[in-house]
């Protein structure tokens, strides 16, 4: 599939003044497995054409799966009628700077070529490596998206994004461990060591007695990823900041986290999953968010660019996005420290290793109060060593208190993704006793 520039321009002509198109030709190939067998496969191609027309402070939008003139014309007429129905507003048009050069990520040839047989071979390799006694679940997925954002003022940006994802969860006697790897280039995702990693995670250990009270914890990257992404989504957008709905609202240049916490959003950083521009066509800016624990900024889109000095940072979200309409971080990177994960465990002394935080949900956004459970490979640490499995527990805590209690940061960062964020890059973290309580 390719998006024809002439078709995009013809559609913009038909939509008229104030029109913007966000077009995405997408291909998804997926193999899902459970109980050590394939449960289904999926091969999807679609064309998403998101049209938005803004005139005199009034906006109407639409979505189609085609750029064929007859369908675009029908939508244009409908949007025209809609605009006429909306009350006229005397709003100054948003004047965010849309210029600048968008970086152009390199599409991975290996991901572009990957097909169902490749996914099945990878699954077979992991299953064979694990052997008997384990129930294997997970998925192997390849995504290709050709994107174009163009408007009636002459903006035209395009890029091809590829993404490969491997998730494997092994269950042995009710204990589970997981591996998740994601990269733009499927050739960069190792498959050959997945089984051995899972076997090591599921090694024989006694089951620890439940304890109560505050505890120290080593948050492994997948757990830290969920924590940081949740914090970023709820706290570091310009809309919530401006409406004083978020934890950092009114706290620019104030300390909200520990000295070891430096967080940026950077869609150009190759450690994440780079992309060049947002659905409004704004090039992705590098945005310092927390610098050594101090609030340094928030991310914005065109509508909220007044919060970020009149310039959108390139963090608009697609029209109709299922996680809301406000600008949101897209490529978070948490600065690395200098400790190995083993050193963090040793420094922890007594506490827990938490591999994943599952179903982490916000109870009170402004307080960053969340609740969730541990999942997969939660271990008890005693005297600086992992000594036992620890049962699944529910944790209810404030993320800002956890960020203020980080006393160790790992050197090795892991790239991940989450449904509401393109990529998150985080190291393991050591959290002092206090905010997390059993």
């Amino acid at each position: 599939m390719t998006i024809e520039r002439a078709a995009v321009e013809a559609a913009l002509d038909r939509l008229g003044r104030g029109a913007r198109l966000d077009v995405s030709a997408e291909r998804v190939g997926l193999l899902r497995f459970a109980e050590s067998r394939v449960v289904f496969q999926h091969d999807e191609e679609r064309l998403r054409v998101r049209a938005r027309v803004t005139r005199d402070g009034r906006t109407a939008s639409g979505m189609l799966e085609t750029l064929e003139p007859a369908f675009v014309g029908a939508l244009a007429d409908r949007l025209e009628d809609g605009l006429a129905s909306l009350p006229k507003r005397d709003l100054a048009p948003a004047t965010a700077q849309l210029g600048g050069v968008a970086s152009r990520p390199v599409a991975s040839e290996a991901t572009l070529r990957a097909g169902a047989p490749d996914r099945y071979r990878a699954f077979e390799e992991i299953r064979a490596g694990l052997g008997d006694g384990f129930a294997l679940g997970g998925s192997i997925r390849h995504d290709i998206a050709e994107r174009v954002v163009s408007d009636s003022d002459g903006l035209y940006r395009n890029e091809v994004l590829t993404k490969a994802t491997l998730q494997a969860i092994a269950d042995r006697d009710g204990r589970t461990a997981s591996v998740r790897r994601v990269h733009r280039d499927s050739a960069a995702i190792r498959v050959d060591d997945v089984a051995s990693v899972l076997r090591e995670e599921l090694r024989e250990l006694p089951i620890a007695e439940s304890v109560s009270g505050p505890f120290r914890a080593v948050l492994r990257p997948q757990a830290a990823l969920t924590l940081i992404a949740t914090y970023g989504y709820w706290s570091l957008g310009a809309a919530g900041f401006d409406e004083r709905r978020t934890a950092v609202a009114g706290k620019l240049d104030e300390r909200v986290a520990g000295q070891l916490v430096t967080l940026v959003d950077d869609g150009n950083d190759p450690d994440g999953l780079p992309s060049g521009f947002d659905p409004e066509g704004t090039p992705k800016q590098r945005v310092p968010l927390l610098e050594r624990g101090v609030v340094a900024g928030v991310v914005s889109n065109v509508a909220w660019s007044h919060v970020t000095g009149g310039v959108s940072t390139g963090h608009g979200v697609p029209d109709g996005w299922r996680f809301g309409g406000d600008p949101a971080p897209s490529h978070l990177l948490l600065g690395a420290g200098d400790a190995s994960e083993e050193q963090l465990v040793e420094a922890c002394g007594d506490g827990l290793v938490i591999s994943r935080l599952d179903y982490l949900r916000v109870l009170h956004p402004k307080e960053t109060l969340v609740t969730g459970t541990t999942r997969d490979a939660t271990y008890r640490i005693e005297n600086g060593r992992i000594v036992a499995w620890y049962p699944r527990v529910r944790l209810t805590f404030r993320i800002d208190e956890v960020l203020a209690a980080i006393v160790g940061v790992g050197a090795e960062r892991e790239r991940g993704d989450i449904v509401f964020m393109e990529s998150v890059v985080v190291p393991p973290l050591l959290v002092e006793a206090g905010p997390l309580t059993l």
Partner: protein
Amino acid sequence: MRAVAEAVLGLLPRDVAYGDVRVVRKTHELVLAERSGPGELAHEESIGLGLRVVVGGQWGFSATHRLDDAGIADAVERAVVQARSAAGRGEIPLGEPVTTQDRWETPLEVDPFGVPVSTKLDLLAAVVAEAESAGPLLTRVEASMDFFRDDKIFANTEGALIEQVITESGAGLLVLAGDGNDVQRRSFPNSIPRNIRGQRGEFATAGYEHIAKLGLVENAARVADEAVQLLTAKPCPAEMTTMIATGVQLAMVLHESSGHPMEADRALGWEASLAGGTYATPERRGSFRWGSPICNVYADATIPGALGSFGYDDEGVRAQRVQLVRDGIFLGYMAGRESGGQLDVPSTGSARAESWQRVPLVRMTNLCMEPGDSSLEEMIADTKGGVLLDVNRGFSVDDQRMSFRFTTEIGWEIKNGKRGAPLKNCSYSSITPEFWASCDALGNEDEFSVYGVPSCNKGEPLQVAHVGHGTVPARFRNVQVGTR
């Protein structure tokens, strides 16, 4: 659309043991008015096909928006190649063949897509104006309507050919109030978690007549006023106490602690790497005490007007009612053809896909709690001390659906049989069978209502299902409540 479906089936190679195709045209209209912003109109259309095949005991699925000859041929090839690449597993048990030929359409009085946008905007503007009377502490007021129409054809290699037109209408109000230190939210008539297009308010399979019944204008000022009041309300006390949940609040607890765990694909471990497994394992059918003896739960896709109602599911199986819990004992599952076959039970007509580009998964239809013989007022009058909780704000549940924590938009203290002052930031937590075992009163038939929830997420790739929940107010003893 029918011609496309027939063309697809005509192209299937001989080694395809089973195949089905859905051609779906999905239409969505959004109209939104807000307090100080420009408002929003959106019109979305999507048309495409989704094809499933079984070859050598493996599924293949492909979906495309290209409905010309080349697109159709390509989709067939891609589905078949997938299945062949993993073939050799044996047979997929699909139960009895599905051979129905029929047409079904949502009964409605007023086609919502025929109502002028200006009429919709006028109503929403009136809602916003009423809400604004709550004063300057309001930071956001949004009133919206969404309308959906799925026009779809299902056909399979067993001879089924089913045409359905499903129409859904919904609307809601979201109010945020803030004083710089605190932010509180109220929504009406149902929870509005975020400003997500298509998921705001209370929905039904119905026409525009549904909107008028919601009472948006009549309730807007009260709801907005409650949001402001909550800024200075007392926090919910942390204690083990008696908790009364309104029907709309009970809907989400039922959804998470009964609905998802009783989906057959979860019981088979197929969701283990995603949302997780379930406590409702197959060997527990007929013996596991899920709740107190007054608890009876069923799923029913035939309730007129309910959001989870339809004629046939996306495997062509007729809509039906299935009992899940009787007298507090877990009985069985909602199932599709394959998951039912694996558990040796028939499909319950519960396999649904978000649209053409997704495979059917086991989904709730209208999950209902049978009414009891009490009432909300009687429950309150009969409670010496406790809390009344209303409208869901958030939740978290573990991967086995046992440990959960819910928060609500608003609560009230109950003292000596009377509803008292409002409470903010209310939460409650429990373990599923302990929670339902503590249920000692249920509202009566007059209080039974089906709430439409258009935001049930499941699967990979993620799918959003529109489901209904029939509930009554309910009382629970010795529940941990608090603010965190």
